[in-house]
């Protein structure tokens, strides 16, 4: 049976049209864009076009606001460290408890170096505490780094209005938009967002290429110094095939934006309804009314996520989980914990993330196999009785802590 891929927030397949566009740049078009001869010249033109394609997807005012990097993580690091270095007198940073590790771990390191980190909390639906945000915005803050969409639940944050609030206080605003770009219309020139990170492989380009958008005129300090590439803002010979691919992928993302927001959303909703109708003691996590159109995160209570994934994998279905076991850590996902999801549910959270390549047949197949998987695992669970959870599960089974 053909495998079913529903882990698109982790990475996406490269669109065949993207592969076609990039291939010549791995073969005959191998030149270095900096070179003076014709080999380089053609490549230089292709890079220019790719930059404009990304500019269109982001609605950036100028193509030169697009800096190509190696990945979303590099973009996040560059943005935060640039803000810090450009304004050494500002010793505070605002972020959220539910950011990607690419932001959280940079902040944690800066905290060790003496910075004060304000981590905004979320409520049970994953919505940000904006009162706290308002409180901590000040002229001591070097940057506010807030994700556009959460990778685990798909919950959207009001980054446009938060950027306005930051601007009013003279604070730089960065958003990790790795999950949002390509799935939502974005028009940066009409926002107060100063910096934005995106990643190629989340929108059907290959791995190894990303972008940091930096608004014209924003004070900037490069992470990598060296050659004059990217106008000196990111030294290092360009990943030409990757950049060309990302340009094409950006163009295609614009073309498919409506499909993503309509058809993919319908598929996601069908999956959600189908699973919830058939499986008791399961609930959707995150802000159900305000999330990415492709993402569904469901907590299946009293069972553990890695076990669910192994059984799905046996059926040829790929998804991911917020359980501790899938990452080898001792705690379930920091996003689930921040929302206060009980441990017995957080460990059983499963994320299905769709793309324009998914079909209704695939969704129906997942709806068909999932109830049996959950039932099999609940049969093993000490929290589950004959036909439902044991009475007062956390009391009935309270193992000695090991």
């Amino acid at each position, binding site marked *: 049976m053909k495998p079913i891929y529903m882990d698109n927030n982790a990475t996406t397949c490269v669109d065949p049209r993207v592969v076609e566009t990039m291939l010549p740049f791995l073969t005959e078009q191998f030149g270095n864009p900096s070179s003076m001869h014709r080999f380089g010249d053609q490549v230089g033109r292709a890079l220019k076009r790719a930059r404009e394609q990304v500019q269109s997807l982001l609605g950036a005012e100028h193509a030169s606001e697009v800096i190509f990097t190696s990945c979303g993580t590099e973009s996040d690091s560059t943005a935060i460290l640039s803000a810090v270095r450009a304004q050494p007198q500002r010793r505070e940073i605002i972020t959220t408890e539910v950011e990607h590790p690419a932001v959280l771990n940079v902040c944690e390191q800066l905290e060790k170096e003496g910075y004060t980190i304000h981590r905004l909390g979320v409520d049970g639906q994953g919505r940000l505490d904006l009162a706290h945000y308002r409180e901590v915005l000040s002229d001591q803050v070097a940057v506010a780094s807030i994700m556009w969409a959460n990778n685990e639940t798909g919950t959207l944050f009001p980054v446009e209005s938060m950027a306005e609030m930051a601007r009013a206080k003279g604070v730089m605003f960065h958003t990790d938009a790795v999950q949002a770009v390509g799935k939502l219309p974005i028009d940066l020139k009409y926002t107060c967002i100063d910096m934005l990170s995106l990643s190629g492989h989340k929108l059907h380009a290959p791995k190894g290429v990303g972008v940091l958008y930096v608004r014209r005129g924003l004070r900037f300090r490069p992470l990598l110094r060296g050659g004059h590439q990217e106008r000196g803002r990111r030294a290092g010979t360009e990943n030409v095939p990757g950049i060309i691919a990302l340009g094409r992928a950006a163009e295609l993302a614009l073309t498919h934006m409506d499909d993503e927001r309509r058809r993919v959303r319908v598929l996601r909703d069908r999956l959600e309804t189908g699973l919830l109708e058939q499986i008791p003691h399961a609930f959707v996590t995150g802000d159900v009314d305000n999330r990415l159109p492709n993402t569904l995160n469901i907590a299946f209570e009293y069972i553990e996520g890695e*076990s669910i994934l192994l059984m799905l994998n046996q059926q040829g279905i790929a998804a991911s989980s917020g359980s501790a*076991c899938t990452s080898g850590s*001792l705690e379930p996902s920091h996003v689930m914990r921040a929302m206060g999801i009980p441990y017995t549910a957080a460990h059983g959270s499963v994320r299905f993330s769709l793309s324009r390549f998914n079909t209704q047949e695939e969704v129906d197949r997942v709806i068909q196999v999932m109830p049996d998987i959950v039932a099999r695992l609940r049969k*093993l*669970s*000490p929290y589950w009785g004959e036909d439902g959870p044991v009475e007062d599960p956390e009391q009935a089974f309270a*193992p000695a802590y*090991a």
Partner: protein
Amino acid sequence: MWDYSEKVKEHFFNPRNVGVVRDANATGEVGSISCGDALRLTLKVDPESGVIQEAGFQTFGCGSAVASSSVLTEMIIGLTLDEAERINNDDIANALGGLPPEKMHCSVMGHEALQAAIANYRGEVWKDDHEEGALICKCFAIDAVKIEQTIRDHGLRTVQDVTGYTKAGGGCSTCHEGIEELLTRVLSEKGEAFDPENHATEASASAKSAGLPPMNIRAMAMGE
């Protein structure tokens, strides 16, 4: 994706002895819901011979937790309690054809459930002497709690010391930053600073010059 052995997968997809044993006379419940694993082991022990006649498990956990529980029940049925008591977590992991370092705690949980069940049968209360921390050294599966405790117990000051006493950091060496952070934290409790220029403490240095392997260094330092 974890590199699970065929044996682990086989036990996960076809677990043996699932459920609670009818008329069980021994129960062990261990685990930690915060790290996503919990296990209830029930046994039916013949009071005359002390032989485990039946064993059953219920597990909330990942693939290797289910597999560890399942293989454990197979290993102990037919053994006397005294024989079963000698099974340790490495025996469980070996019976599964090995476990990834991040998953060794699943075999530890199986071992502890067995200990707890045996204690329960004998009317004793099982005490856990093992607290689990974040995994630091992936080569030798050594966690933060173990490293911090060893630093405290032996007044260690350098990464080399830690490697000498626990093996942590003795393989690929990529966890040395993590070990330095633990040293920094524990030394600061005593108002001292971690100095990367420091030389290894005498015990570990002299053991090293005597050419002893790390585990012996540890035995020596502990006066064993």
